[in-house]
């Protein structure tokens, strides 16, 4: 009898499933594009693939990717830093948690478009992406870190008290391993949100030399093929960066375990 906890799907089998599902989705897309027959409404996957091969020749393509990437990642890293610091403070001092509660709640519930418009009034469009990415990721990191602190093992805290273990060792041996699953999950979710919100902000704010500007131009000229090609580029960069960053974090925690 098969154990209910054993995942019997092997890696090659999972890859085959993934390839089959991708092939199915692409076929469906191709059929839909052929039925509609108008690239302005829905270009075929082959057209998008062909465009992806030539889009690099568009003037300012790499600069736009670099511009958007650097700003979204800056906003994310800032949120990671401040979210971790404030999450730790809120876990330690209830007053900080009480004072930050309305901010965390409102950032979570207010539509991102409202923030984008307000930010357009407050900041230059060049800084918009950083601020919006930060704003969307901050509550995710903050709330996850807070949850991690709150679910700390009280018995281990008692042990630290008895042995009078200094704070820097508590951070290294107790708090970082404790926060590991919370931070990994928050970073994975936060990075996806940072890209979604960052690109949305750029499409509304249209900063010069950004991916958002490319999206805006594609919309303006009803160039659906470019629109989808740029979407593919964003998705690929977002997934690659998320995987690389999460692996880096895992390597950091793994190194910690070797201490």
């Amino acid at each position: 009898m098969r154990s209910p906890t054993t995942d019997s799907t092997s890696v090659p089998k999972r890859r085959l499933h993934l390839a089959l599902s991708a092939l199915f989705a692409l076929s469906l897309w191709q059929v839909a594009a052929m039925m509609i027959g108008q690239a302005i409404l829905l270009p075929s996957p082959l057209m998008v693939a062909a465009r992806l091969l030539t889009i690099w020749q568009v003037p300012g393509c790499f600069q736009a990717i670099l511009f958007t990437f650097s700003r979204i990642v800056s906003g994310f890293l800032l949120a990671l830093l401040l979210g971790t610091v404030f999450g730790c403070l809120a876990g330690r001092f209830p007053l900080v948690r009480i004072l930050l509660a309305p901010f965390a709640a409102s950032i979570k519930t207010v539509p991102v478009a409202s923030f984008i418009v307000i930010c357009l009034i407050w900041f230059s469009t060049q800084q918009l992406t950083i601020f919006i990415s930060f704003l969307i990721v901050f509550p995710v990191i903050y709330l996850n870190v807070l949850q991690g602190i709150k679910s700390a093992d009280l018995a281990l805290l008692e042990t630290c008290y008895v042995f009078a273990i200094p704070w820097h060792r508590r951070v290294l041996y107790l708090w970082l391993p404790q926060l590991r699953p919370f931070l990994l999950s928050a970073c994975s979710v936060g990075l996806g949100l940072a890209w979604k919100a960052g690109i949305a902000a750029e499409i509304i704010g249209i900063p010069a030399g950004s991916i958002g500007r490319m999206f805006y131009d594609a919309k303006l000229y009803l160039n659906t093929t470019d629109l989808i090609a740029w979407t593919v580029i964003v998705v690929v960069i977002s997934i690659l960066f998320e995987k690389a960053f999460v692996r880096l974090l895992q390597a950091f925690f793994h190194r910690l375990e070797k201490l």
Partner: protein
Amino acid sequence: MDVVLRSVQKRYGDQLVLSDLTANFPEGSITCIMGPSGCGKTTLLRLILGLEQADAGELLGIDVPKAAVFQEHRLFEAVSPVSNVAAVLPGRPDRSLLCEELSHLGLAHHLHVPTRTLSGGMKRRVALARAMLAPAALVVLDEPFTGLDLSSKEHAMSFVKRHAGEKTILLVTHDPTDPAFLDASTLWLTPNS
């Protein structure tokens, strides 16, 4: 400094756990605390460690550096056994010495793996090493040999004796042969001692 208990009383709600307990644990001595389950052995240790407050009475000589083995292992599971011991030592401890000490407890092949991968008996020995190697004047061991086979237990008891030095050691056990092996005196607790 001797650890002195004078008319110590502790209750949890309506349940009186320790009643008018008076005892003296001389500095540098080993005392085995014995008694049936529920008689207040662990409560007594928690009072001495400063983790609980007595309802009445006095506890003297407990404001010194302390170390403990708790009923649970209470180790930093993500890091190695060596790091668990190093965590309670001042400055930058000599890790090769720690490896040597842990090897005496049969952990030579598990020194640098995450502690969470160890068996219960191995974790118990790491907890014991941490308590005995810590720079403490008062060491409290709550059933430190639980889960150890006979050979491991003998090694562990020898380890305790070797590192006892001038430490005052209070050790909860259910094994009546332990006090003789450890050259320890015995405090018998009865319910509502």
